[in-house]
């Protein structure tokens, strides 16, 4: 009988993942390159300048796409964490482990592009009255917490499960933080000299370009995750027969 205490990973075998992704990767990378090129060229060269913000609105195409993607990290890590805790699937932890630093980068990029955009539109690099930036900042801190917990625990198994639990708690917390910061923000809004209306340029073309960019960024996320996870598989499974054969072939 395969009880839940059994530390065997029949499901989600790393080998299966490695072989499948070898086949998927070219397609994914191709699609990513296509969407990225279309999105960036369109946003930078062809998108008409916003009538209020001018060329600054082009930053938003990237910002919105990165921001949307970075919101998906905690849910992703929480799901992977649940799988790690309940089914002890090694693969889920490999994904979660690589998702945390990637998520921190995406969150950082969101903050950076947001503040670059804000420096022109709002005249300031940082604006506490924008609740999205503030809750992003706390998501960034929470992700750093997961990363530092991972690096602090020496035993890989313990680290995997501790981070899985923290990701689940963190995911619930991010939602609460988001709503409480929104609330806090609306109450402080009247004192703010900045109108949030400026924040949303309109026009269907802008949103289509943004949609293309969102797809591109998600593909980028998928490709990065797959690549880092494959890397991790090779490292962790270095004793397995198929990995040795793979290494022998590469030589």
């Amino acid at each position: 009988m395969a009880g839940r205490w059994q530390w065997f990973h029949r499901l989600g075998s790393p080998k299966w993942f490695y072989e499948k992704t070898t086949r998927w990767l070219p397609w994914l990378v191709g699609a990513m390159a296509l969407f990225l090129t279309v999105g960036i060229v369109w946003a930078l060269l062809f998108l008409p300048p916003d009538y209020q913000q001018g060329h600054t609105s082009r930053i938003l195409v990237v910002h919105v796409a990165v921001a949307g993607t970075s919101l998906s990290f905690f849910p992703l890590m929480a799901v992977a964490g649940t799988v790690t805790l309940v089914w002890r699937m090694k693969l889920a932890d490999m994904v979660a482990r690589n998702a945390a630093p990637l998520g921190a980068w995406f969150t950082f990029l969101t903050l950076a592009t947001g503040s670059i955009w804000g420096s022109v539109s709002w005249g300031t690099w940082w604006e506490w009255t924008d609740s999205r930036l503030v809750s992003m900042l706390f998501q960034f801190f929470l992700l750093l917490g997961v990363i530092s917990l991972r690096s602090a625990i020496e035993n890989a198994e313990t680290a995997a499960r501790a981070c899985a639990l923290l990701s689940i708690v963190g995911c619930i917390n991010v939602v609460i933080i988001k709503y409480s910061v929104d609330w806090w923000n609306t109450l402080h809004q009247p004192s703010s000299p900045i109108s949030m209306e400026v924040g949303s340029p309109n026009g269907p073309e802008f949103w289509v370009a943004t949609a293309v960019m969102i797809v591109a960024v998600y593909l980028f996320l998928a490709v990065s995750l797959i690549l880092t996870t494959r890397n991790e598989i090779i490292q962790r499974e270095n004793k397995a027969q198929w990995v040795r054969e793979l290494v022998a072939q590469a030589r």
Partner: protein
Amino acid sequence: MTENSQATRPLLEVRALTCERADRLLFRDLEFSLDNGQALQVKGGNGSGKTTLLRIICGLNDSFAGEMYTRGEALAANWDAFHSGLLYIGHRVAVNHVLTPLENLRWSCRLHDPADDDGIREALDQMDLAGYEDSPCYSLSAGQQQRVSLARLLLSSAELWILDEPFTTLDVDGVALLENLVARHASDGGAVLITTHHKLALPRLRALTLGMTR
């Protein structure tokens, strides 16, 4: 699992137990059983996985492959019942330094059995700690602290004792006392799983040696 009735199935059965820690194989395909009236000594050199084995059986460590049964039932599904009949004393003896022996035992017994102060005093007296009941444990020697934790053996109604290196800090009298306790527990129908480097003078003692796989 139905070839025998429940009462005749052993208290603890371990099958094909394998444990790997940080990419190092501690033991592989370990098989043994322990039943009422028996004492089993786990032997093996440093780092052979004795403590890990005991912690696995207690349910403190679950990084293993293999199966464990109690009375023919999978242990994984019966932890609560198993824990209520289990007394574990690790090499960290669970004695808080600022509390007195009496206060320590009041708590650690309460986690399993009801205990009254008279019973605890009597147990401490038997462990040769009379007069120390109300001194803070930091003023006690390591051996005396070990005795405080071993007093729980006298206060517990647990069927299975799991003792990890209980002799290390005990003096000659203490060793004899504990040997006596273990022997009597086994002859009373209890079961004992023990790790130690001591040569135990116990009738019907069985031994399991780890570290033979390499």
